[in-house]
């Protein structure tokens, strides 16, 4: 008995030694920030308080009230909603189109196409922004192409109307690859017998797509929707590198607002804003998982 007991104690010691480096860094750089972000959002913590955190005062829900009183924050929530509402369906539709095309039984160049469509995902947003700013200029590549078909394109990034659509387009380009891979895996799991049966019954290609493929793909589509909405709700990089939230706050997202508050030294406000966003992300994921379960 005592032999196994000491062996167990020995194993526990070894296990904690194995876990130690991780636990130390996890504690310092994840748990402490996570715990302090909650506390911070109920205080008036400012950048100047980093050296003397004892000078910080609790303000209760003050930060949250101020936040919703700030028209720029409300604007940033609306902008994020706009981005999510149009960005998610667009990205999913394009990804599904690409995945379906790649899954139609073509064999040659499949890998090359897949690599091509996925490349935007792995490339640095900073580098990609340089060339996109160039393409979206008033006399840039996009507007000259539109000119061929008689459309007079706007000054995308300096128009309060068109800056957001331009960023949505760019985000769809950057993220379609991830969803394409996920959808492709889902499509390959649709049993070919189902398609055969539908074909025998005289169903057209379109009917088979809408009546067989899409229903079978529902769990995969929902998984893709959850993944992408968690990312899209934190919409930040595109406006940061392309428009700095402008023009006139037209592309100021909630995550961007958080970052600007951090820049102003308003750490408490930034923490509160990030929690509002966190709640939105958690709520949306919950709704989507509910949908996923109830439809099954």
């Amino acid at each position, binding site marked *: 008995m005592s032999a196994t007991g000491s062996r167990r104690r020995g194993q526990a010691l070894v296990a904690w030694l194995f876990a130690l*480096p991780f636990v130390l860094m996890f504690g310092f750089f994840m748990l402490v920030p996570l715990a302090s972000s909650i506390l911070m959002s109920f205080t008036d913590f400012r950048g100047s308080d980093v050296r003397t955190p004892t000078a910080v005062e609790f303000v209760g829900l003050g930060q949250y009230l101020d936040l919703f009183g700030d028209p720029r924050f409300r604007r940033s929530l609306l902008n994020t909603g706009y981005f999510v509402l149009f960005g998610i369906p667009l990205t999913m539709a394009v990804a599904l189109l690409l995945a379906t095309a790649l899954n139609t039984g073509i064999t040659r160049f499949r890998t090359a196409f897949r690599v091509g469509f996925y490349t935007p995902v792995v490339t640095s947003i900073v580098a990609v922004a340089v*060339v996109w700013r*160039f*393409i979206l200029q008033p006399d840039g590549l996009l507007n*000259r192409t539109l000119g061929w078909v008689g459309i007079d394109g706007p000054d995308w990034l300096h128009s309060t109307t068109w800056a957001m659509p331009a960023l949505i387009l760019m985000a769809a380009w950057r993220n379609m690859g991830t969803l394409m*891979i996920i959808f492709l895996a889902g499509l390959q799991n649709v049993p070919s017998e189902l398609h055969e049966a539908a074909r025998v019954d005289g169903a057209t290609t379109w009917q088979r797509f809408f009546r067989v493929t899409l229903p079978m793909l529902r769990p995969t589509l929902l998984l893709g929707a959850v993944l992408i909405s968690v990312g899209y709700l*934190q919409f930040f990089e595109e406006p940061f590198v392309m428009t700095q939230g402008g023009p006139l706050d037209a592309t100021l997202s909630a995550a961007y607002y958080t970052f600007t508050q951090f820049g102003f030294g308003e750490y408490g406000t930034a923490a509160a804003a990030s929690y509002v966003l966190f709640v939105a992300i958690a709520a949306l994921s919950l709704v989507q998982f509910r949908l996923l379960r109830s439809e099954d």
Partner: protein
Amino acid sequence: MMYQLNRRQALTYAFLVVAGCLTVLPFVWMLLGSVKSQGEILRDPDGWLPRSPTLDNYHVWLTELDLGTYLLNSVLVAGFVVLGNLLFCSMVGYALAKLEFPGKRVLFTLIMVTLMVPGVVTFVPLFVVVARLHLVDTYAGLILPFLISPLGVFLMRQFMRSVPDSLIEAARLDGAGEVRIFTRIMLPLSGPPMATLGILTFLSSWNNFLWPMVVAQSQDHYTLPVALSLYSTGEKATDYGLLLAGSVVVITPIVLVFIALQRWFVQGVATAGLK
């Protein structure tokens, strides 16, 4: 029937080729623009092919803008981050998968909780922690917060659980200690999840720009994306050829790694997506 199938395939290929060209077009534009002089870009913004290709833009990066330092910093940070994740996540992954110890469940639950916390929530307090530790504008400040990742632990633990207990028991009967079991049995078997983890962490470290931009305050500590971002919004904002050349330098290593290891990338997306 045969004819129709072929026509459909032709249409599919046509669609894929057009979509593929549109997708990679920004990269082609970037590459071609990077070998044009500023004069040519301004004179002929419509032109595709460079009339007199030049490497001047790259030369300026190397000689005037200290590209070597930025590149070295990027490689250094990404190297440490990848090695740290591989080592520390597999160590704790082994403990969570195969060893019994008090506090195991709490630890695993905490890891799973942080997996769901978006980065924007911890960003500001993480900066406060790093500032309190006097790590602002140091390599340690750039590297330490990313040496471990909850996702990495999850990947390693899931995989290591599938290693049969009998292998480990047999080694224990032969008198092997836990360290020996870890280095001689678990690590050699864990190639696939380590490849996935290595690729995912390299990718996010190489492309990370917000954290290094805030933490690296002197030019000596800039990584490539930070340098490119600051130049493209600052003094060099209109020097298109130069900025495009910088973009090519940032993108090329990751695209090469991606093409070489694309099978593993795809698996990484599938596992990370299905967490």
